[in-house]
């Protein structure tokens, strides 16, 4: 294996987390930095000619190529896992920018108590308040500590919205259930799609507190603190699974890459498939990474600092393949790598059919309204058979015809032929839906390890997910569905299809790309892989960024939290680690 010249820092993965770290280090230090990304670099001009539902929304051109590598899944540890042969429940992106290119740019924050979930829940409600078999942990960082970084993230993205809690003062019209914000959103709320306006008015009439969905598809032109200017959203409806053709959607390639490309101390290598992290057990330091380069040659890139930022699955898999740390064992409870796999509960809790046309082709991935009245800690008291909660949203995604033709009330039985066609045309633009997104607690029985049977294109074992829903998620989902039906009725829906309920984890139904855990953060090396500064407990020059560090899933979309944690780590490295390399206290 050829050894390349050493660099100061190597970053595995060119998505949100990896490119944010590259931007921070490159702008604030003179370190030499290499970013390794296995996918391609797209030109921003490609996104206009990519507005094609078939190739992008249906055939998923921006997603990882599963013919090369996928994951396997089983519902419990007694079963044999099967490979996910085609995309389904989650959609990890490929290429520079990662999933941050094709995302919907929904940017809520996690609730303050999410970060201290174990302590807050057991202190308030007793040791038995968490379900049997849970693996819930505190994060080792509090919301108050993270708030300044969340605010930096909002300024980076230019987030559009309305604060509901400014420094503790509750503000009508914003989300009064969220944590305090030190500042108002950088840009005002987006325009409101018609179906979202129905939801807003219905929620208000039921006594709830609807608020404009926080959006990084920005409402008007904005220049961020790095001097990057973007125009406002045009509501073309091509966000979800597309890159933005006007750059109104915050993406790593329009916010971070332009700065990185101007810095001479960073190089971005695409087509680089990282196989192993190398480390020295005597000195207890990571030495660098080995990868197959774009020409097919395996090379070793030595580095003094190593960052893993290659999404939940690959962060976990690379540690397991490299023998770094101990693999988690669900029966003995020993080991930490792979533990606390969670996948946010996300369902279309009701499909609602209206008399009037909704013009659903107009919108953006995040324009709409949300309701967080059931996203609260005190919701679990009383007669409910679950703890925690989630938010409801009606967004104007920009519905496209292949994906949405044929969504029909349950009263229509035909699935093809004249009768079906007539009904499907009639309902096509009269169908709305309420989405519910809820917390997923961590359980001992949900985890990741290496699959003993299936391999990737190079012969390395695939990552194996052992994952299933438990009663807490099923009951939460049933509760959310009943509330959604009430809200849809208040919106004026004439017919409704409620979500049938969570049964076994279904790999074929898209939920969200919010899969977390595997290399979790925490206050002690006994229960976590990285420290609250995302620093590996055993190899202090290794940092792990991304949703793989979440001990469990909040109800909010994860990107702002991923970026806030990465900013905090970047500060700790620049301000302290570089001066005194070693464990950050």
């Amino acid at each position, binding site marked *: 294996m050829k050894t390349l010249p050493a660099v100061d820092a190597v970053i595995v993965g060119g998505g949100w987390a990896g490119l944010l770290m590259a931007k921070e280090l490159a702008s604030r230090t003179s370190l030499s930095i290499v970013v390794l990304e296995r996918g391609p670099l797209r030109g921003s001009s490609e996104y206009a000619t990519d507005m094609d*539902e078939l190739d992008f929304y249906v055939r998923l051109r921006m997603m990882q190529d599963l*013919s090369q590598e996928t994951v396997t899944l089983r519902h419990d540890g007694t079963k044999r896992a099967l490979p996910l042969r085609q995309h*389904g429940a989650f959609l990890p992106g490929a290429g520079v920018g990662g999933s941050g290119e094709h995302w919907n740019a929904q940017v809520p924050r996690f609730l303050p108590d999410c970060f201290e979930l174990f302590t807050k829940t057991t202190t308030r409600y007793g040791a038995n308040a968490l379900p049997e078999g849970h693996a819930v942990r505190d994060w080792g960082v509090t919301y108050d500590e993270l708030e300044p970084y969340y605010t930096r993230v909002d300024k980076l993205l230019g987030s559009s919205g309305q604060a509901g809690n400014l420094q503790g003062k509750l503000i009508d019209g914003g989300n009064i259930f969220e944590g305090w914000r030190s500042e108002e959103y950088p840009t005002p709320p987006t325009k*409101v799609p*018609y179906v979202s306006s129905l939801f807003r008015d219905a929620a208000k009439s039921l006594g709830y507190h609807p608020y404009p969905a926080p959006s990084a598809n920005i409402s008007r032109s904005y220049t961020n603190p790095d001097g990057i200017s973007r125009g406002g959203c045009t509501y073309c409806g091509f966000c979800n699974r597309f890159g933005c053709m006007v750059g109104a959607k915050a993406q790593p390639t329009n916010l971070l890459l332009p700065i990185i490309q101007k810095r001479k101390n960073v190089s971005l290598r695409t087509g680089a498939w990282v196989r192993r992290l190398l480390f020295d057990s005597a000195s207890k330091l990571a030495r660098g990474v080995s990868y197959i380069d774009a020409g097919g040659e395996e090379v070793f890139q030595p580095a003094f600092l190593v960052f893993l930022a290659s999404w939940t699955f690959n962060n976990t898999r690379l540690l397991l393949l490299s023998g770094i740390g101990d693999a988690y064992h669900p029966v003995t409870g020993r080991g930490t790598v792979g533990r606390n796999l969670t996948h946010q509960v996300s369902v279309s809790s009701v499909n609602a059919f209206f008399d009037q046309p909704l*013009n659903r082709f*107009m919108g953006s991935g995040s324009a709409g309204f949300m309701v967080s009245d059931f996203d609260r800690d005190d919701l679990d008291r009383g007669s409910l058979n679950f703890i925690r909660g989630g938010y409801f949203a009606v967004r104007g995604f920009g519905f496209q*015809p292949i994906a949405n033709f044929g969504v029909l009330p349950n009263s229509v039985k035909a699935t093809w032929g004249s009768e079906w066609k007539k009904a499907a045309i009639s309902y096509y633009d009269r169908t709305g839906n309420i989405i519910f997104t809820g917390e997923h607690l961590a359980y001992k029985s949900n985890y990741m390890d290496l699959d003993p*049977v299936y391999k990737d294109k190079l012969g390395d074992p695939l990552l194996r997910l052992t994952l299933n829903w438990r009663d807490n998620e099923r009951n939460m989902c049933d509760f959310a569905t009943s509330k959604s039906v009430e809200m849809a009725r208040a919106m004026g829906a004439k017919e409704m299809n409620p979500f049938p309920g969570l049964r076994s984890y279904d*790999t074929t139904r898209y939920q969200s790309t919010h899969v977390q855990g595997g290399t979790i953060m925490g206050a002690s090396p006994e229960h976590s892989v990285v420290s609250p500064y995302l620093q590996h407990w055993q190899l202090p020059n290794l940092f792990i960024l991304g949703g793989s560090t979440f001990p469990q899933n909040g109800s909010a979309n994860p990107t702002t939290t991923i970026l806030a944690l990465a900013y905090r780590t970047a500060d700790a490295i620049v301000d302290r680690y570089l001066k005194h390399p070693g464990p950050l206290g």
Partner: protein
Amino acid sequence: MTLSAATIGGVLVYSLDRKASLLPAQHKPVRIPLRFFTETEALIVAAAASRIFPSDESGPGSREAGAAIFIDRQLAGPYGRDRFRYTQPPFEDAPREFGYQGSATLRQIYRDGLKGLDGFHLLDTAAQDEALRKIESTLFFALLRQNTIEGMFCDPVHGGNVDMVGWQLVGFPGPRMSNYDEIEKYYGQAFRPRPVSLSQVTGAKIRPGEDEP
């Protein structure tokens, strides 16, 4: 391999730049190049797609949209040969929630499924519907139904949705660059701008996925 344009509706002819145009009835016979199907297979697919999405009083269907030609191109391309699926063994039977776990490519599923519809295109419509009801629960039928919908509503660059008949049917305007002025203006009333295709909007040459290696 080619297919007589007249046999699938007589309206379709594609020039090399993928523009579809109407043929006058008295025009000399035109042959459409096929990439994957045999002529008989294409006739069966066209007939079956037309029962799934018929041309009837509620508007044009899969024949006018050219869905059979769309499906032929899809199967000839990377989608049809499972270019992006994980296809390493072992293959195991699995519950529905694990998705398709078989080893057969989509092309093979079509080819095998079409064997069971021998002579389908020669039947009357009632007999055709009966034949489709018998295979309704098969993966082949699910694919045929899904691909027919795709052929109705895809961008015309893919060979379906000719003249944007599908988009007109449901009021989808195609890739419209801005709805800024309209999104809050048409609350409760239909806003139906004239559909435009991606190449019309961008003026650029679009390279569809089915033409990729």
